[in-house]
Each structure stands twice: as C-alpha cells, then as structure tokens.
C-alpha cells in the first residue's frame, strides 16, 4: 500500500508542466551567470541579452497580475497598462524631485496603483462583458491623456530618469554591475509574485474568485457577495502591476505616456492568452514568447527571406538590381507574421502555451 500511495503522490507532482517550469525558471534565473559564456560563444551580446530579458521579466510580472483577474477572475480589463504607467510615473516624478529612495518610491507606486484600481474597479466591476472592457479602456485612455498633459514631466515626450531607485546601496544602481543587479532584482520579484499568485488562487479567496468566473449567480446563491472578492482581486492585480511599472521605469530610466497606451494593455492581454489563462506560469511563457518574437522575428524573417531569395536565384537566375532589397523589405511586415503565430497558438491550444505542455496536473 505505501508504495502505491507514494506513486500516486509522485505522479501529479512531477509532470511535463512542472519539469518545463523548473527548466524555464532556472534558465531565467541563471542568465547573468551564463550570459558571458553566450557572448564568448558569439551567440549574443551579454548586455543586450540582459536588457532584453529584464524587460521580459518585468512584463511577465505585469502579465501575471493581469492573469489574476483575467485568467482566474474572468475580468477582461483592457486598461491594465495604466498601472504600469502609475507605478512608472510615481518613480519618475519622485526621482525628478530628488526623492530617490526605492524604499519610498516602490511602496508609493504600489499604493497609488492599488488606490486607482480600487476606484476604477468599484465603478467598472458593476458592468459585465463588452461594457467592462470599454469602461476599463476608457479609464486607461483618460489617464493616458492626463500623462500627455503633464507638462512639468515632459508631457508627450516623457521624462528621463537620471538616477535609478536607491535601495540604500544594497542594489548597485550605477556602473557596469547595475544591469546584473537589476536583472536579479527583477527575477526575485517575479518569483515572489509567482509564489503569491500561486497561494492566492488556491486559497479560499482564490476559490471564490474562480467560482465567480465560472458561475457568478451560483456563487451568490451560495452566499458569496462576489463583487467584493472581484474588487479585491482587481486591487491586488493593480498593485502588482504598479510594482512592475516601478521596475520598468528603472529599467528604461525613462517614463512616458506611451507606457500606458491602450496598445500596451492589449500586449498584456496577448501575453496572458498566449501563455495560458488561469495557469500560474502561463504569463511568463506568454511574455517570453511575445517579447522574444517581437524582438527577433524581424531579423529571423530577413534571414528566411534571404534564403528564399538565394534559393530562387539559384533556380531561375538573378532578378533586377534592388530586387533583394525589395524582397527583404517584406520583413517589415513582421507583425503580420506575429499575428498569424498568435492566432495559430490560440486556435491550436485554447489554454495557450501552458496547455501544450500537457494538462496532467490540476489547474
């Protein structure tokens, strides 16, 4: 009997999903240590790799926060990038006025985002479906235009941050080390957020949130005032996303209204859907896939188009001068290819990338 039970316990724990999750997280976490090796091997510049991947980590945090309300709560917020903007502006504006301590900037960024989420959620969560999407979008646009109108902070052009958040010297904020340090910080925050979301969605609170997505009326009939729980989730998601915004402002050393443009909100939705809604790690896969495709798809397309050109040239002879350039210019339409890939993934696997790894474990 004991053998059977232990087998029964082992099976759900060590699945493909878990294995992939461990490998992906390990690869992410150890990047600063093997990046120099990648550079010597001529694969990718170390600084460039760290910069790209820091952005992936930060947007993965934002996507995780959206996943909490979109994937687990069924709330299609089309204005989630607003909290990236709020977090970013908090850091940028405080830094602009000489208040550089991260211990002040970050809590304030989180608090402010939470407060805005409370207000926006309280008004928008009374609606459902398309109305909810439109109202969250409207609030996001409103704040976007507030940003555009903020003349003292660069308005449309944005504001350069001269000094990154200062964590009492614990995290190097200048010099060559700052990139590694900031990468490690971002990774640590991502892991914390993943752990938090994991606990949250499996707690009593999480069960109510997921139940309300599945059948809100029934949850009310069971005695749950679902509005409160959905609002609480909305606020938590806003707070976490504000944290991502504070990180992003540090990463780019720049804030601008573009951070909260509605297309940014759309990107976050794509990351969540692509990675797998309602799976804790899905948004990480989604952010990885989306941002890496965005970064490398144009180059990849040029490469493939070049091969195609050479191939056809070998068969039917060379075309007129400049034909190759015209041909390669097709790579500028890489977004169409990205769109096609997204549609293919979503159609092929409704649960996103995560579901491709097998649904052996429980959600």
């Amino acid at each position, binding site marked *: 009997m004991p053998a059977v039970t232990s087998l029964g316990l082992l099976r759900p724990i060590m699945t493909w999903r878990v294995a992939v999750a461990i490998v992906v997280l390990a690869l992410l976490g150890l990047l600063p240590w093997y990046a120099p090796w990648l550079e010597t091997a001529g694969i990718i510049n170390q600084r460039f790799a760290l910069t790209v991947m820091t952005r992936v980590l930060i947007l993965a945090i934002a996507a995780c926060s959206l996943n909490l309300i979109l994937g687990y709560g069924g709330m299609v917020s089309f204005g989630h990038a607003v909290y990236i903007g709020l977090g970013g502006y908090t850091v940028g504006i405080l830094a602009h006025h000489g208040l550089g301590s991260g211990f002040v900037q970050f809590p304030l960024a989180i608090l402010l985002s939470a407060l805005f989420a409370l207000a926006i959620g309280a008004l928008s969560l009374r609606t459902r479906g398309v109305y909810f999407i439109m109202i969250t979008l409207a609030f996001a646009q409103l704040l976007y235009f507030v940003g555009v109108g903020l003349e003292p902070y660069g308005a449309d052009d944005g504001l350069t941050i001269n000094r990154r958040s200062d964590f009492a010297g614990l995290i190097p904020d200048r010099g060559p080390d700052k990139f590694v340090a900031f990468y490690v910080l971002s990774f640590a925050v991502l892991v914390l957020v993943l752990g938090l979301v994991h*606990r*949250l969605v*499996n*707690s*009593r*609170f*999480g*069960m*109510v949130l*997921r*139940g309300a997505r*599945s*059948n809100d*009326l*029934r*949850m*009310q*009939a*069971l*005695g*749950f*005032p*679902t509005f409160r*729980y959905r609002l*609480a989730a909305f606020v938590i998601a806003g707070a976490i996303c504000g944290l991502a915004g504070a990180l992003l402002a540090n990463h780019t050393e720049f804030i601008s209204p573009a951070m909260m443009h509605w297309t940014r909100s759309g990107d976050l939705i794509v990351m969540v859907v692509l990675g797998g809604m309602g799976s804790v790690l899905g948004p990480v896969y989604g952010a990885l896939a989306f941002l890496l495709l965005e970064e490398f798809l144009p180059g990849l397309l040029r490469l493939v188009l070049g091969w195609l050109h050479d191939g056809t040239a070998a068969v039917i002879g060379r075309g007129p001068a400049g034909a190759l350039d015209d041909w390669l210019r097709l790579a500028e339409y890489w977004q169409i290819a990205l769109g096609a890939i997204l549609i293919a993934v979503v159609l092929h696997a409704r649960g996103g990338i995560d579901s491709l790894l097998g649904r052996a474990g429980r959600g």
Partner: protein
Amino acid sequence: MAEALLQIDSLVKRFGGLVATDSLSLDVQPGEVHALIGPNGAGKTTLIAQLSGFLKPDSGRVIFDRQDITGLPAAARVRLGLARSFQITSVLRDFSALDNVALAEQARQGHSFRFWRPARRDPALRNPGMLALEEVGLADRADTPAASLSHGEQRQLEVAMALGSDPRLLLLDEPMAGMGPEESVSMVALLRRLRGKRTMLLIEHDMDAVFALADRITVLVYGRAIATGTPAEIRANREVRTAYLGDTEV
C-alpha cells in the same frame, strides 16, 4: 398559530404587461414542507427568484424570521439562512463535485478573505463537503468535474449545494426536473429524510412526490395563489381540480 419562518406579503412582479407574481401572500411555518405547485409559467420560479434576492419585486414585502429582507442582496439572505436550488442546473462546471459542496461550506464559515492556506487541502472544508455528497449519494463522484456528471447527478449536486449552506429555509425549484425514474426515487427518499429536519418550500411537478412529502400545498395560477391547504384539502378543492389538476388523475 406559531410565528411564520417566511412571510410573503402582497408580492407583485410584472414583466411588461405580464403579471408574474400577482399580489401573492403566503407563509411557511417552521419545520413544514410547503409545496408550491402550478402549471408551467404560473410564476413559481419567479417567486423563488424574489425570495432569494435575484429579482426585485415591484411591490410587497418578504419577511424572513421577523426581518424584512425585501431589499437584501442574494448573498446576505443566504447568511441569514435562506438557500435555494435552481430549476435549470447551475453548478460550477469546471470544479469537481467536492469543490462545489466545499464552497457551500466555505460560504457558511464566514468571509473568504483568506489568502494563504490552500482551500482544497483544508479538512475543515473537505470533510463537511464529503458528508454533503454522501447525503445525496454522490460520494463516489467527489473528484469528477461537475460538467462530467450525468444530468441526474448534477441535479443531486444542485440540492447538495443548497443543503451545504445549512439553511433554515430551503427553497427547492423542481429538484427532480429531468431526472430518470430511478434517480427521482432516490431524490424523493432524500427529501423524505430531510422532512421534519428542514423547513422547505418545494416546487415540484411530480404530484405523487408532492402529495407524499408536503405538509401544506399552495396552488399558483397566473401568479396568484388560488388555494392553500393540506394535501387532502387540495385534492378535494374543485377550483384546483379544474384549474390545474384538471384531467390528471390524482
């Protein structure tokens, strides 16, 4: 006469020109099984919706345990001890059967602003959940997703969830709707076991079940209560026979 547990006072609900609940007054006494019968479209489900807080009546009052609950939200009524089941099965389809009843227990235990401990490994939720499933005969289906249960099993789960709130008044909207004969028998057996322990307002089309279970019966036609009485009185009532029982052999 003892103080009624539920008192419905000249309740009116209109849908455009249609009066679905027409100055309806009714009471449910503590401990009784009060059956509500009537032809399709009589307004039975509409009444349950108003009692449970999902529909707002146009006028009239609902008094539960001496408290006016007419304007109370649905969830708050459950906490007062008023639970309902749905005529059209309404379970949490992507949750297991056990999850469904455990959620009823979770709601009963107070607020759920508990963010840390995994709910699915909490014996304080799982154990009462298993008992609730055993009560309706679903214990061996505990880990099956509700969506994969047969129709009859989903009906049993539906009732188990309402029972899970440990209500003082159970509003059952056609618990046997669409059940096969065998399943109906076990549902009637369950209701018989609950009889005397739970106060119930029971809507049911199966007349054999109604006459076997009910202490009192109210007949609803076009939103109006045309008669209330013991099964024997209702059986003998000429107006009821013509309006509703009509041709059916009772």
